[in-house]
């Protein structure tokens, strides 16, 4: 195995040569490309990448351009995971038979699949589950923007309660999405995956640490990355990092990792906890919650987030 890239601080990190190119067609201020850059720059090993249909895929492979400087494949909406698992299986088989080309010698390529929350929580779920059950040596990264942003903002099973989307519009009779967000990380941990973690682009150091740990882990790794969506969450493009900060500091999106399916570790504890109200108020998709008839939902939200944080802390303590 090749040596892990040493990244002590941001200045060190900034000497990385980006393998993701600009002039992709993602919206200005999109968090997807921030996440992808942080992941790709976390290693110097060759990368074999795939992407499920979604914002990232349609915007980085617009004919006749590609934005990827490494091998990259797109097949279908549901099978980013299986495409990369297939590549990984072939690599292993050829290695075992000694049939790898000479240029591969001494290198340890990393296999990474990217998918949006639609491709991960809903459409590609069965395929990801299969990959994790078979135990491929790969990483699956879910870019979780809590909505089908590519097709115009339909709800997915990652959309949190109270969010207004085009298929769950808020108005006189409805406060928007009525279902809770699916707890994908626990589901993936329940597969017995050696490493699953939640990351956010604004905490780049935490992100790089987890990605490097994921690369060093043998077996399937699941990463859930919060990706603030300027278009569908409805905030100004320059606020992407500020909104991400609000999400991690209000504990709406807690940063933690689970090893071997059980050992939970919280990796970020905000010094100053921000009320959930601030997080909701900063986004257009929650603005109806501030009308008198729906305001009770903000308290419900706060209770839900507090209960979740309490649960995570207890699990960390008990280490089960």
């Amino acid at each position: 195995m090749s040596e892990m890239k040493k990244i002590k601080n941001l200045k060190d990190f900034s000497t990385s040569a980006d393998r993701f190119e600009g002039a992709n067609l993602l919206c200005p201020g999109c968090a997807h490309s921030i996440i992808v850059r942080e992941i790709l720059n976390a290693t110097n090993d060759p990368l074999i990448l795939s992407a499920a249909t979604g914002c990232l895929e349609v915007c980085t492979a617009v004919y006749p351009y590609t934005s990827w400087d490494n091998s990259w494949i797109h097949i279908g909406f549901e099978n980013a995971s299986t495409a990369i698992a297939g590549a990984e299986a072939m690599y292993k088989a050829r290695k075992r038979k000694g049939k790898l080309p000479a240029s591969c010698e001494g290198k340890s390529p990393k296999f990474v699949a990217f998918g949006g929350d639609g491709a991960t929580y809903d459409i590609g779920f069965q395929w990801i589950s299969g990959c994790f059950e078979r135990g491929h040596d790969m990483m699956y990264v879910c870019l979780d923007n809590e909505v089908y942003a590519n097709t115009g903002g339909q709800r997915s099973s990652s959309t949190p309660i109270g969010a207004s989307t085009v298929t769950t519009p808020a108005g006189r009779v409805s406060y928007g999405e009525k279902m809770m967000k699916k707890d994908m990380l626990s589901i993936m941990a329940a597969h017995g995956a050696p490493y699953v973690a939640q990351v956010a682009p604004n905490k780049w150091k935490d992100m790089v640490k987890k990605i490097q740990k994921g690369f060093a882990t043998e077996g399937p790794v699941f990463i859930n990355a919060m990706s603030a969506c300027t278009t569908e969450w409805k905030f100004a493009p320059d606020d992407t990092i500020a909104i991400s900060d609000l999400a991690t500091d209000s504990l709406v999106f807690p940063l933690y990792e689970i090893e071997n399916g059980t050992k939970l570790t919280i990796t970020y504890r905000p010094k100053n906890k921000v009320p959930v109200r601030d997080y909701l108020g900063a986004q257009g998709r929650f603005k109806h919650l501030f009308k008198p008839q729906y305001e009770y939902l903000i308290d419900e939200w706060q209770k839900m987030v507090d209960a979740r944080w309490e649960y995570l802390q207890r699990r960390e303590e008990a280490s089960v």
Partner: protein
Amino acid sequence: MKYLGWDELIPGAILFSFSEEMEKDASEILPEDRPYAETNSHEAYVGDWRVLKPVYNRDLCIDCQFCWIYCPDVSIISRDKKMIGVDYDHCKGCGICVEVCPTNPKSLLMFEERIDNDDALAQWPEKE
């Protein structure tokens, strides 16, 4: 029918990032030294997406690299741990770099596209 081998297939949906085979992985070659192919989006231009452009003031910069890490469009150019400029071919003008800049006054500010960079530097605000 003769089946074509993998290497004989005509590139249809395959796009090449580089025009020639590289000895090293791209992670070991800086962008200015890479043999980019025509089909790499590095060769494309999205500068016309901008309404406002970020202008960079070297005198105030402390090289914290926050703008580099949070730029979604790989448009902040940093070499040898120093921030050296903005890539106006790929910058879409989202303004994240200005928001995350910690200096006072900021070393990156948004200006209207028509304003010349030197004029922008001349009208830089004073410390608050």
